């Protein structure tokens, strides 16, 4: 990398103000591309130092007892702790549950809302904007707002339910429900992106398909199952992968709404990483990071390959 840098830099410096003798220029033009490699350099330095190096370093430090200043190699002890302590291991399960719920709901709701919002209805533009806006609001703000709305006694949601005679649950205080409540909030916040992606896909379907289906006497429901749904495959791939990546890494909402509680019932990997970091267990925290990395890779890479292969087959 350094060698290309120095050579092309001198090259461009001499060539830029004025061209030297024609023969030299011709010979050099062969070697020197108008798209110099050093254009990569600024990005490579930042990305390499702050992303690539820490990622590789994490594999080593996850095997150590670590206090930033000095580290002691302890083999797989951190991982052993991680998988034997129930409160740590539970976070792995919770992460998978959280990602599955959010991603599944975003696919289903996103598609339904998108079909609805691309039919001929009044105020379509307004409705699309309203559904999308929460995507732009900070997770902390939404987390605070919904933890108030989900308050078991004074919260708006349970008050509305009470009007209908339903006794609302303790959304964030019930250990069995806390994770799901946060997941629902995450769907509320993120479904707008899924809707947008699906709308873009639906708009791209040629109208003739629907006209032909109508001529053949297919109902609207049938047209949905046999035309819209199969053609939404690429969009669905995108939505699944995007929301899985987001869901597995999710931290902001969970941390502002429950801090992993009550108990450890809504802890996910990202919140465990933060808790262990705060507690000063840097090695264990980094091990959590590595587990998260492996989990993301183990889910996303096969899925990516599988979904894309199916697409090619068609």
């Amino acid at each position, binding site marked *: 990398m350094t060698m290309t840098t120095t050579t092309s830099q001198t090259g461009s410096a001499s060539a830029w103000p004025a061209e030297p003798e024609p023969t030299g220029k011709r010979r050099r033009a062969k070697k020197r591309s108008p798209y110099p490699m050093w254009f990569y350099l600024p990005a490579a330095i930042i990305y390499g130092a*702050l992303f690539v190096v820490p990622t590789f370093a994490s594999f080593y430090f996850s095997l150590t007892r670590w206090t930033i200043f000095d580290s002691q190699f302890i083999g797989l002890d951190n991982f052993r702790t991680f998988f034997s302590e129930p409160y740590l291991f539970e976070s792995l399960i919770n992460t998978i549950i959280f990602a599955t719920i959010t991603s599944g709901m975003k696919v289903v709701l996103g598609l339904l809302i998108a079909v609805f919002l691309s039919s001929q209805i009044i105020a379509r533009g307004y409705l699309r904007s309203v559904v999308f806006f929460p995507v732009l609001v900070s997770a902390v703000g939404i987390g605070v707002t919904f933890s108030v709305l989900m308050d078991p006694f004074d919260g708006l949601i349970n008050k509305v339910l009470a009007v209908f005679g339903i006794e609302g649950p303790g959304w964030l205080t019930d250990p069995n429900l806390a994770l799901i409540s946060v997941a629902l909030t995450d769907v509320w916040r993120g479904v707008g992106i899924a809707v947008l992606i699906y709308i873009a896909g639906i708009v791209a379907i040629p109208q003739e398909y629907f006209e032909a289906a109508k001529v053949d006497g297919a109902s609207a429901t049938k047209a949905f199952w046999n035309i819209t749904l199969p053609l939404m495959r*690429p969009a669905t791939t995108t939505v699944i*992968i995007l929301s899985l990546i987001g869901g597995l890494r999710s931290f902001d909402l969970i941390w502002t709404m429950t801090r992993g509680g009550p108990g450890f019932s809504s802890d996910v990997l990202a919140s465990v990483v933060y808790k262990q970091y705060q507690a000063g267990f840097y090695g264990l925290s980094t091990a959590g*990071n590595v587990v998260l990395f492996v989990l993301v890779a183990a889910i996303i890479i096969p899925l990516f390959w599988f979904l894309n292969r199916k697409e090619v087959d068609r």
Partner: protein
Amino acid sequence: MTTATGTPKLNKTYSWVSGTLGILVTGVVFVVPFIFIFLTAAKSRQEASLLQFSWPTEWALWENLVEVIQTRDYILITAFINSTIITVGSVALMVIVSALVGYVLQRRRTRWNGLISFLVLAGLIVPPAVVPTIWVMQALGIYKTLHGLIFIEVAFGMAFCILMFRAFVATIPRELDEAAIMDGAGPIRLFFQVIFPLLRSVIVTVIVVQAVFVFNDFQNPLYFLPGDQGATVQLTLYNFQSQFSTSWNLLFMDILLITVPMLLMYIFFNRQIVAGMTSGAVKG
């Protein structure tokens, strides 16, 4: 989709009935929480503590605004200044460095291309390792500094931008480059005077989308910029959450304050935001 039925009259009925239904449902699900934020931010302390969805008996919007700004020695002002610096700095840097990469990556075929594309995809997928990043930042002396966080945001947001730029550069005909080279433009002039101006529409999209992301970012400032000195708006809100557990009016005033800029962005840059979120997403 459902338009495929019957007479125009029926269509019109459908259009009105469903549209109205949609407005009602989204009104309850999506609009009410925002109205709740606004109403609570406008109430007095006692009234806000009831957490009711009701009209304020007395409007205290201005008083709450003043009080929340004065809290803890005007920390909110510091936070807004810091967040602005971080957002502007990182987005500007991100645009330049990733435009350079996206451009060369699209134009030049070398044996590095595969590796670089892989690294870009990895940047979208791999969760950053927190403590090792702090360790590197400490070694470089940029931990707990604004510019340190700017570099972090650039490193983590770069992958998305590169993909956007690479896709857009592919639509610029190569003949343009060749013409410029014939006219004696070097690599730097070719990029900055010929290509870069043509990227304007995608640059606007990248700026808007990344500005939203960086401004709303909570996790990275929490890890890499702790302490009151480097408070950002999201961190301040997070700290207020425990501090204002009895004064919801002030807490929701703060939420209102950080939501309004996003609302303005959305009103002015609706098209770019939608384009960026979907096109970038499809490629990712």
